């Protein structure tokens, strides 16, 4: 890895320290990935020093505006049961560690954080499900995810997760669209290379939902997948589809060992 060929590029040895806590942004690849990669890197490593800096301080990180909103929503009763999240989950900090193991298999189904939250909304609160990539949903996903910041990503890929993981892996390595490219063509074979104006990362999702300067909002994992698939002139899977759930599990597993960075800042 030879960062620094471009002027705005960050120092390769820069450390991601937030509120005194040092996060793991590079580490040995998990065993299942070692046939293809030796080391895994957070997307933070590939951003310019200006973008990196925004993530070092929660007061500078624009995602916290949305987190503050979610804190309020957490306390607000809604739905036919007239309950708030806080009626059943006294302290959001109780969700510490959860983000690191999501998605997970529950009752035979692959469940993402969005699924869990909507399940509580519809089944526990009698409220309407939130749209997958809506600001409300992604703000809540971020608030819950933040509780695990600094903990290593650690999704389960064996047992009943295995078939979902295999499905996700298959999608990851399939060349799609008129440009005939797979995720691995860009994020495994060419990370650290520039593709036009973009400095390619490994396409890790340990920092999601991410605040992107480009659209000034929180971006869901599935929206990012959709964007990358569209760029190769392929028909994306639907946001919230089983295919994207499986891909999310697989891509999460490629980050096993990296710290959860939610909410990361990207360009």
């Amino acid at each position, binding site marked *: 890895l030879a960062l620094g060929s471009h002027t705005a590029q960050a120092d390769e040895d820069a450390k991601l320290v937030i509120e005194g806590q040092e996060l793991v942004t590079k580490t040995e690849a998990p065993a299942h990935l070692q046939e293809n990669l030796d080391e895994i890197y957070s997307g933070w490593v590939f951003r310019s020093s200006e973008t990196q800096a925004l993530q070092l301080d929660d007061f500078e990180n624009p995602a916290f505006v949305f987190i503050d909103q979610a804190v309020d929503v957490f306390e607000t009763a809604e739905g036919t049961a007239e309950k708030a999240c806080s009626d059943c989950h006294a302290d959001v900090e109780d969700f510490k560690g959860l983000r690191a193991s999501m998605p997970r298999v529950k009752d035979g189904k692959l469940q993402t954080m969005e699924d869990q939250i909507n399940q509580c909304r519809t089944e526990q609160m009698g409220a309407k499900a939130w749209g997958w990539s809506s600001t409300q949903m992604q703000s809540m996903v971020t608030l819950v995810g933040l509780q695990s910041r600094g903990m290593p990503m650690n999704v389960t890929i064996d047992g009943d997760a295995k078939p979902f993981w295999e499905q996700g892996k298959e999608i990851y390595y399939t060349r799609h*669209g008129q440009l005939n490219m797979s995720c691995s063509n860009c994020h495994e074979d060419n990370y650290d290379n520039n593709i036009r104006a973009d400095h390619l990362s490994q396409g890790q999702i340990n920092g999601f939902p991410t605040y992107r300067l480009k659209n000034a909002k929180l971006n869901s994992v599935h929206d990012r997948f959709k964007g990358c698939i569209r760029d190769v002139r392929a028909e994306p899977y639907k946001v919230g589809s089983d295919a994207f759930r499986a891909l999310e599990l697989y891509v999460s597993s490629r980050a096993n060992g990296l710290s959860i960075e939610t909410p990361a800042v990207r360009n």
Partner: protein
Amino acid sequence: MKHIAWAAFALILGSSAAMADVVKPGDVTFDEGAVPAPLTGQAGVAEEGRKTFISRKLGNCLACHENSEMKLEQFHGEVGPSLDGVADRWNEAELRGIIINSKNTYEGTIMPGFYVGEDFPRTAKQFKGKTILTAQQVEDVVAYLKTLKEQ
């Protein structure tokens, strides 16, 4: 009304005349990775090829290749090799072959085939059954690449 109809007629004539001697993607004959015969009867125009090379909607070659000849253009990619002096390394037929379908020269390469008559998984509707570049655009790019000489 009259001259509009005439213009449309001329357009049909023009395009069918051009179509007649265009090699379809499925009919391209490769000799190893190279394609000796031009895809159209009309010689490529280097200046047009240069534009296609830069355009994000067309070749977008610059996304992956550095090219010192166009230093003023921002953001040269580094996914593929620099194309400085590429005409010293490959002859016209080889260059044409690499653009039409680079997979015949480099197995498994990330470089897209720009004139391939095949749809890959989930190709979006608006691109189905279409090549990335037209036959003439391929010829234009070949003509442009032939100008990239160092010796």
